[in-house]
């Protein structure tokens, strides 16, 4: 039987999706299932790893059934996953020892504070490229080892395994307690704070710093390479790729050359720039991370700029203010006026991420006059996403020493023409949208197909990338600079809002 398709599994924060792609990168079938979000205490966010595994058991065969194909027609499966979310499970029974701790969970805030006060705390950024923060995996693992009875001893004896979601799913697919393969890929490992960014292996200094036993860690493998064969759910299908979701989108957008960048616009936005074979240390508030690694070739690195609130501001406008009834109506409302009327919204709902990293900042609306209508506010909502993108791009240009020439975009907000035009205007570079919007899934499928020879090389993948739309900059320079200056002054007004509670240091 000919192997006509590649499957991708996108294990995301709110749902798990299975997509079958054909050789030309076209979508053949899609299945999806949401899982529960658990908030047992303020700041805690958990998932049930068993529920996620059961969802996969259900939707993967469904995706095959919708397309009318058997597992024998699938050349390989690739996994893209929510990054940093941490699962610990028992090697013998396959039962998780605790709920999965999601990247949004802030239970480790005090631990991170304590760790960053240690004199040797500088080793973290030096060795793994990331700042010490709650959403990376290592503090979470440490927290669980400290808080679950007897866990540290079991972990040291190798009875308990650690993994991010792709490790958990691959281990289960390849047999679970019955010979499951315990692996992760370089992009996921690069988000743990435990991997040395140059060696691409667990760093003994970092393991020691966080107190994480090596025996519990998966083997780090390239993003595109066959890890094993599925024994369950997709029997006989090779599992040939794993990437963190944002890295998968970079791959799906075929940003294979140094200097190519993509931005995914969802609730928040993630801009990743391919920096080639060398990790670039950021001095402008960006994260250094692994972009992907194909087989035994050298890894490709990326700079990442994360923006906490983009689409979430539109949702706030809809759900909390009730000014619009659906998200796309923001464009209709914004088009009732010609400009922002002098109004700016800085959506620092939980502080500002890249490039500022100011956790004490809070949202502001500035420039209000009696002239301002809801149309102006709608414009300011969209423009906030444009200016936040501009700040991250400026930081990238400064860090990488190469100026961005085109921005490839994906995600739900790309259906907003006014916003896409505004982004092109403020960046002063063309913004292009690819024909396949599902870039995260496509990236995982590409990496898997590449590993098994379903696609011959990166150039073959590039030929599948087609421009669906392009927005060309049209704003004059003077206006752009004046508006950017206004935006920066608005951002300054968001700083220094939350004061430390009295008595705390």
């Amino acid at each position, binding site marked *: 039987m000919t192997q006509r398709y590649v499957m991708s599994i996108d294990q995301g924060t709110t749902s798990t999706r299975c997509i079958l792609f054909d050789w030309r990168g076209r*979508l053949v079938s899609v299945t999806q299932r949401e899982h529960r979000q658990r908030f047992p205490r303020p700041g805690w966010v958990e998932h049930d790893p068993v529920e996620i595994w059961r969802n996969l058991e259900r939707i993967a065969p469904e995706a095959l059934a919708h397309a009318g194909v058997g597992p024998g027609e699938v050349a390989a499966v690739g996994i893209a996953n929510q990054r940093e979310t941490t699962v610990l499970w028992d090697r013998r029974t396959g039962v998780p020892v605790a709920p999965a701790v999601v990247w949004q969970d802030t239970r480790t805030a005090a631990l991170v504070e304590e760790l960053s006060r240690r004199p040797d705390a500088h080793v973290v950024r030096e060795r793994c490229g990331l700042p010490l923060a709650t959403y990376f995996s290592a503090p979470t693992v440490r927290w669980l080892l400290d808080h679950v009875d007897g866990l540290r001893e079991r972990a040291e004896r190798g009875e308990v395994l650690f993994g991010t979601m792709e490790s958990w799913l691959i281990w289960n697919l390849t047999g679970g307690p019955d010979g499951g393969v315990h692996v992760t890929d370089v992009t996921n490992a690069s988000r743990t704070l435990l991997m040395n960014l140059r060696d691409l292996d667990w760093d003994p200094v970092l393991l020691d710093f966080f107190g994480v036993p090596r025996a519990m860690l998966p083997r780090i493998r390239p993003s595109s390479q066959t890890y094993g064969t599925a024994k369950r759910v997709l029997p006989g299908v090779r599992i040939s790729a794993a990437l963190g979701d944002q890295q998968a989108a970079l791959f799906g957008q075929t940003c294979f050359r140094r200097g190519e960048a993509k931005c995914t616009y969802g609730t928040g936005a993630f801009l990743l720039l391919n920096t080639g074979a060398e990790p670039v240390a950021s001095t402008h508030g960006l994260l250094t991370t692994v972009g992907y690694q194909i087989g035994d070739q050298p890894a490709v690195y990326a700079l990442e700029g994360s923006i906490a609130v983009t689409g979430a501001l539109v949702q706030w406008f809809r759900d909390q203010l009730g000014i619009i*009834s659906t998200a796309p109506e923001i*464009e209709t409302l914004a088009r009732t006026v010609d400009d922002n009327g002098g109004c700016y919204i800085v959506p620092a709902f939980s502080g500002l991420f890249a490039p500022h990293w100011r956790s004490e900042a809070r949202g502001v609306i500035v420039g209000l006059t009696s002239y301002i209508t809801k149309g102006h506010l709608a414009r300011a909502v969209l423009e906030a996403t444009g200016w936040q993108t501009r700040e991250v791009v400026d930081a990238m240009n400064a860090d990488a020493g190469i100026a961005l020439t085109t921005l490839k975009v994906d995600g739900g907000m790309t*259906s*907003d023409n006014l916003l896409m035009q505004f982004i092109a205007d403020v960046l002063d570079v063309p913004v292009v949208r690819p024909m396949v919007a599902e870039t995260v899934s496509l990236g995982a499928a590409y990496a898997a197909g590449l590993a098994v020879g379903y696609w011959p090389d990166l150039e073959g993948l590039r030929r599948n990338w087609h421009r669906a*739309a*392009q927005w060309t900059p049209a704003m004059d320079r003077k206006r752009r600079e004046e508006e950017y200056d206004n935006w920066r002054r608005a951002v300054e007004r968001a700083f220094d809002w939350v004061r430390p509670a009295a008595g705390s240091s």
Partner: protein
Amino acid sequence: MPGPVQSIERAAAILRLLAQGSGRLGLTEIANSLGLARGTAHGILRTLQLVGFVEQDKATGKYQLGAALLHLGTSYLDVNELRSRAINWADALAARSGEAVRIGTHLQGRVLVVHHVFRPDDSLQTLDVGMLLPLHATAIGKVLLAYDANAAAAVQEGEPERFTRRTVRTRKEMSRVLATVREHGWASDVDEAGPGEAGVAAPIRGYGGLVVGAMGISGATERICDPGGRPRPELVGYVRDAARAVSRDLGAARW
């Protein structure tokens, strides 16, 4: 002439009831007020809920008037909402057909382009969103004329512009063309808007089959049509499948 339709009378009574007083009522209260069996009232409420005229509170299970009813006077479907709901299917249509895709709605006697996907050959193309096209000379326009009474009413006066020798101009000829469009469920234009240009389009429908726009491909006549000058059947199939898929997502059940 048939008599009044009972279920519509009952639906109207339920809406009037909900428009009075606090505006939040449970199923039993509604059924009792109107002397209906619970099952009957529930069936009508579910249909009203489906079309957006009634909303049910998740926590209490009580019913109230829906947002769609409040916005009845304004546009039925926001064009940006239409684009957002159609974008994946429009991409898929461009990928399958190899041609540019446009979605259009009626605006003051013209076609307003609300979405445009480039032809997937990476040649230089510019985004047409916001552009106005003639109703009588484009496949999208003909679909709107065939199914949208407001569009048809807007072009009653005046002589339509002639772009090529094949542009449909007389009212008689147009009625014949539109009858064919309604019969087949799709429209085409071949060398009518410009020499060597052709297009195929099909209607996008919402709840109850109401046509909210049209979706189509356009490109060189030699690619869109067979040597006999007729649109290629496989392309027509792709267009109709894509328009049906969007319609299903918008809640049109039968198409």
